[in-house]
């Protein structure tokens, strides 16, 4: 009986460690390892578990979608350090200057755009935090509104196509990626609109939190403004649309788009004679350290989740699920609450690979439309990125925000947007047609490779909780899964 307590204890231990303020990556890895050793001591886990750890690290190293993180970070940093991004938002500020909350709308708009280019939350949040936050602070926006709108808009990458989350989910559920995209389009764009509505409400109720650009800063008018628009707005916008466009029409993968974007930013900075050696060195070093801590959070969480599964954390979760009253609706509500909580410490890859294979058969038995279910989970996981105190988007923003922005500002700023997210989850649960009616042709074309992948995942699943060896084998599979996803991505386009 006491063995059942290990998984809940493990979660509690992680919470304590994190709250003490020790680096997230090492807290995750340590909690995982400590309970792993305990599990081995109690005979729950095999010592082979320890050998599986370096393999998991290798799996993260070889994950080619994660390559997009440094690429888009470098692009954002070059645009920011060379002053081009600031000039861009400045010009947008001049254009929308008279409107209260103008820059905040620009952030939502740019966020949706970036979401459509990167599909990687970390990259979006880092880039927007670097670019927009200083400008908003200078214009006198409240720290809470600025950080909230940036974190929330950054997480749009989770849900707006070509989101990586949707690709992973589609593969896991055996549905078509294209259908998933179509289904997610409405909730994704709807969220962006709701964010803008919230900015509007704030600018009416609390005008001082979202000021118009001060008149003395609106220095350009008429022809001069038009000229400024051409020199400062057009080049970055062309860059963004080139990156976005090539990804959308399927010429480039998000990773390649990121590399092209970063190279393009370098060329532009060179052309504007703003690329100094010093600037390049700083940008390259900051990209490296940021990538490092993001990847190490992933390394930490992979250690944690490996052991969590090993000590039957997934069974603990499953058992909690089985006692749910209320049929399909009860299941959906509980699943959403659960994913919401799990996503505090698992990233979406982990959830997709661990939880979704457990949930999909149950959902199918209850007659739940899988596209709807998948989109619902995607919106939900996006919420968890934003939820204080463990939302990953908030960590990322914290890491690039100046010290004068307090962590509590970031937390409080996120809360209205979390409410918007929950509203959207509830809406999607209440009105499935919002998702399903956008999916053309009910004859669901099975995603290529998805069924095969599904089969593989199910094969690895039964062995996973008991033996330490299974996760190692699973790694091999998820390696395959990544290439499958890439292939599916290309074929969908």
């Amino acid at each position, binding site marked *: 009986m006491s063995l059942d307590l290990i998984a809940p204890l493990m979660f509690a231990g992680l919470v304590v460690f994190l709250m003490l303020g020790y680096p997230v990556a090492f*807290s995750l890895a340590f909690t995982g390892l400590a309970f792993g050793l305990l599990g081995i001591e109690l005979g729950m886990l095999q010592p082979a578990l320890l*050998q599986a750890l370096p393999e998991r690290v290798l799996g993260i190293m070889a994950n080619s979608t994660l390559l997009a993180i440094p690429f888009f970070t470098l692009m954002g940093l070059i645009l920011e350090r060379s002053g081009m991004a600031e000039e861009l938002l400045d010009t947008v500020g001049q254009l929308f200057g008279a409107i209260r909350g103008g820059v905040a709308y620009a952030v939502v708009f740019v966020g949706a755009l970036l979401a459509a280019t990167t599909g990687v939350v970390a990259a979006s949040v880092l880039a927007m935090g670097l670019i927009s936050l200083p400008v908003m602070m200078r214009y006198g926006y409240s720290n809470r509104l600025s950080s909230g709108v940036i974190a929330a808009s950054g997480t749009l990458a989770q849900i707006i196509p070509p989101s990586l989350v949707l690709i992973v989910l589609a593969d896991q559920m055996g549905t078509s990626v294209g259908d998933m995209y179509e289904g997610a389009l409405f909730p994704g764009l709807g969220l962006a609109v709701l964010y803008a509505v919230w900015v509007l409400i704030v600018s009416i109720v609390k005008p001082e939190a979202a000021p118009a650009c001060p008149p003395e800063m609106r220095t350009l008018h008429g022809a001069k403004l038009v000229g400024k628009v051409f020199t400062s707005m057009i080049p970055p916008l062309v860059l963004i649309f080139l990156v976005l466009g090539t990804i959308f029409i399927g010429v480039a993968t998000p990773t*390649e788009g990121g590399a092209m974007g970063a190279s393009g930013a370098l060329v532009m900075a060179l052309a504007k004679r703003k690329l100094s050696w010093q600037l390049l060195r700083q940008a*390259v070093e900051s990209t490296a*350290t940021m990538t*490092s801590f993001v990847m190490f959070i992933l390394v930490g969480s992979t250690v944690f989740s490996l052991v969590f599964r090993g000590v039957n954390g997934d069974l603990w979760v499953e058992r909690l699920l089985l006692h749910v009253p209320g049929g399909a609706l009860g299941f959906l509500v509980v699943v959403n609450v659960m994913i919401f909580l799990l996503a505090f410490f698992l990233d979406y890859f982990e959830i997709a690979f661990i939880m979704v294979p457990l949930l999909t058969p149950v959902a199918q038995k209850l007659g739940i439309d899988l596209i709807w279910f998948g989109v619902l989970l995607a919106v939900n996981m996006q919420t968890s990125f934003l939820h204080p105190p463990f939302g990953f988007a908030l960590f990322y923003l914290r890491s690039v925000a100046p010290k004068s922005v307090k962590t509590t500002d970031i937390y409080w700023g996120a809360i209205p947007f979390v409410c918007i997210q929950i509203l959207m989850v509830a809406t999607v649960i209440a009105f499935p047609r919002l998702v399903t009616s956008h999916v053309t042709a009910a004859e669901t074309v099975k995603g290529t490779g998805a069924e095969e992948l599904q089969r593989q995942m199910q094969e690895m699943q039964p062995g996973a909780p008991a033996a330490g060896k299974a996760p190692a084998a699973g790694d091999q599979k998820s390696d395959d899964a990544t290439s499958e996803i890439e292939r599916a991505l290309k074929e969908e386009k």
Partner: protein
Amino acid sequence: MKSLLRFARAIDRLNELIGRGVSWLGLAAVLICAAAAIARYGMNIGSNAWLEIQWYLNAAVFLLVAAYALKRNDHVRIDAIAGRLPPRFLAWIDIVGGIVALLPTTLIIAWYSWPSLANSFHISEYSSDPGGLIRWPVRLLIPVSFTLLALQGVSEIIKRVGFLKGMVPASEFERREHAS
């Protein structure tokens, strides 16, 4: 204590040197990826070697820079509660955390990565994709990275103890702002 601090500074310099140097590989990865993309779609040529060298480079960057990031105190913390605690208490958390959590974790992962590295080297393991690269250099990155991290962990512990003794200013390990 003085010689310990000298030792800590030597570790700092080592990891700073490695971190700064390795960072440039990230730029190389960007340029290679962009060039490979253009070559693939423009001239319809390409190979798995070009794709794999990208993640090799990126892995080298994030693994070998981790210790330097630790030195810069760049690894993200949750400071909602900790931010309100006195600096001495935080130094204690870092000392205890370093000894209990960071050192064992990094050393265990470094230690257990040797067998697969040795095996990979022994059988000269290659990527399973055609035209792929030899594997042991990336496998080597794991023990090197986690050993450097452990070393940096030792340095951080020494510096925190120095701080508690009033021999090291807090500025030496405070997080530097990215905006600088």
